[in-house]
């Protein structure tokens, strides 16, 4: 199958369940809301080395935030519930609480919740107070520009991690342009993030290494400089490959994002779009590229 002359490899992306949280950061100005969100999502690139995968889902208008101020929605994914709690506390506590004028709220309606404000409140050292409204409790923690308002509990749910596209191109410029176009298209899909820097990963990894201390290492089959030395997944004329990893709140959201990214990535200079999988052994979600290209957004 080809789209705009780009080969769509007959393969599938393999995704797996993750724990997910969505929280809303607000501030007096969009700049500070985004600054807080960036800090909270910062270096949430891969669970391999960061403990979580995090990103900004999107900016929010004042009409869409709990306190009527400009905001950002942040998505955070981990492999376990305990890790999610730890990462939420760390990132809201360090990234959001410290940002001027910020406040933080749960962004998921879920039957499962974890304490965030309920634990961060102790930073108030006994001076904290709370407000309970419409079944929700908010903690007011005194800080030097007033109070940090944070919701006691954040909703969590099962999400999907590891959706991916691998764009192989004749060169870096063409590959990067396609990858950025794909990330831009994916950013319009609600409920997903692309956690790598700028949404693009230039270093696909494989599990394990010849060095015992490493959990993951470079995936040599996608490295153009190793084409002459090792087995390769690249076409003969390919000189660059970029991976886009997609985490989402639902199976369908990841499917929609993959489809949007796949179609957007088929630009001049791109040779093929493929996807990473582990032969179906890693996770229950399989997104077949041909089906996505034909219009389906669900996985097999």
């Amino acid at each position, binding site marked *: 199958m080809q789209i705009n002359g780009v080969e769509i490899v007959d393969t599938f992306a393999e995704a797996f369940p993750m724990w997910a949280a969505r929280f809303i950061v607000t501030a007096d100005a969009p700049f500070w809301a985004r600054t807080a969100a960036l800090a909270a999502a910062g270096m949430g690139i891969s669970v391999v080395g960061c403990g979580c995968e995090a990103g900004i889902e999107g900016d929010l208008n004042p009409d869409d935030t709990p*306190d*009527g101020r400009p905001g950002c929605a942040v998505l955070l994914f981990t492999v376990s519930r305990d890790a999610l709690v730890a990462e939420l506390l760390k990132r809201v506590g360090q990234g959001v609480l410290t940002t001027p004028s910020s*406040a933080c709220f749960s962004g998921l309606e879920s039957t499962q919740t974890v304490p965030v404000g309920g634990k961060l409140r102790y930073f108030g050292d006994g001076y904290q*107070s709370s*407000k309970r*409204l419409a079944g929700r409790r908010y903690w007011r923690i005194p800080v030097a520009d*007033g*109070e940090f*308002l944070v919701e006691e509990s954040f909703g969590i749910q099962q999400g999907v991690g590891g959706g991916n596209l691998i764009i192989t191109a004749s060169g870096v410029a063409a590959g990067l342009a396609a990858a950025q176009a794909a990330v831009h298209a994916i950013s319009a899909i609600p409920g997903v993030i692309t956690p790598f820097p700028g949404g693009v990963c230039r270093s696909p990894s494989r599990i394990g290494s010849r060095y015992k201390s490493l959990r993951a290492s470079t995936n040599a089959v996608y490295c153009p400089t190793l084409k002459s030395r090792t087995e390769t997944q690249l076409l003969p004329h390919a000189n660059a490959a970029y991976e886009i990893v997609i985490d989402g709140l639902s199976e369908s959201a990841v499917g929609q994002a993959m489809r949007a990214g796949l179609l957007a990535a088929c630009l001049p200079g791109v040779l093929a779009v493929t996807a990473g999988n582990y032969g179906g052994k890693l996770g229950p979600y399989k997104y077949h590229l041909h089906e996505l290209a034909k219009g389906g957004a669900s996985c097999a």
Partner: protein
Amino acid sequence: MTLDFHPGASLDAGPLLPARLLRLAPVEVERVTVDVCGRQTALGEVSRLKWNTAAPDSLVFTGETSSLQRVAFGMDSGILLVDGPVGRFAGALMQAGELAIHGDAAEFLGACLHSGLICVKGSAGHSAGARLPGWKVGMQGGVILVEGNAGDEAAAGMRRGLLVICGNAGASAGWDMGAGTILVFGSIGAHAGMDMRRGSLVAGSAASLLPSFFASCTCIPSWLRVYARYLNSLALTIPPAWLDGHFQRFTGDHISLGRGEILLHAKP
């Protein structure tokens, strides 16, 4: 179901709750006995029953509603609408549900409210959201919205919940408050927050404050914006000047625990 009242004297409407009346047949409703000035009377003698098919889950009181005492007293479900003023103890001890009053409410509106929503289109008398006589604790939850003014001792003994007064409040608002929130868009009278231990009393202005309240700072209370969003969902608008304006914050009552606050809107 609509009950058009003509009692001619004070009527105890406490037994007339939606959960009870809406499951009865019309003839059974008319046989329900109520206390009219100490005399047990069939409901059919003091009211006219109409079925309202448009709102089958609602109970509506019309007519001479000012004679009705204890409307929605202890109500634990359903919607009760009063098209006119009501007497004392309306919504007192309510556990859940909604009470809408299209008129004024007399003393002890929503006293000892546990949960639920009370909306008053007019003004409320003394002790709105306060404790019942002889009780230690006032409002413990729920929301009371008063579009007009409120009398003295609003939310006295409040432990939790939200009381919003769009007009002015009388003396001793938030007296002996343990927690909760009072929003008064107008002014608050003397002795506001007396013996307050925790909680928030926010007002447009105050004639004076007790000397046991200490000024702390000028601030923009971020939590108030969350309340504004919530009140918008109830079709009530916080004064726009409040959302972008600053408030003078006073802590107190320092004769008691002193963890409460009075926020007064700082005029530009």
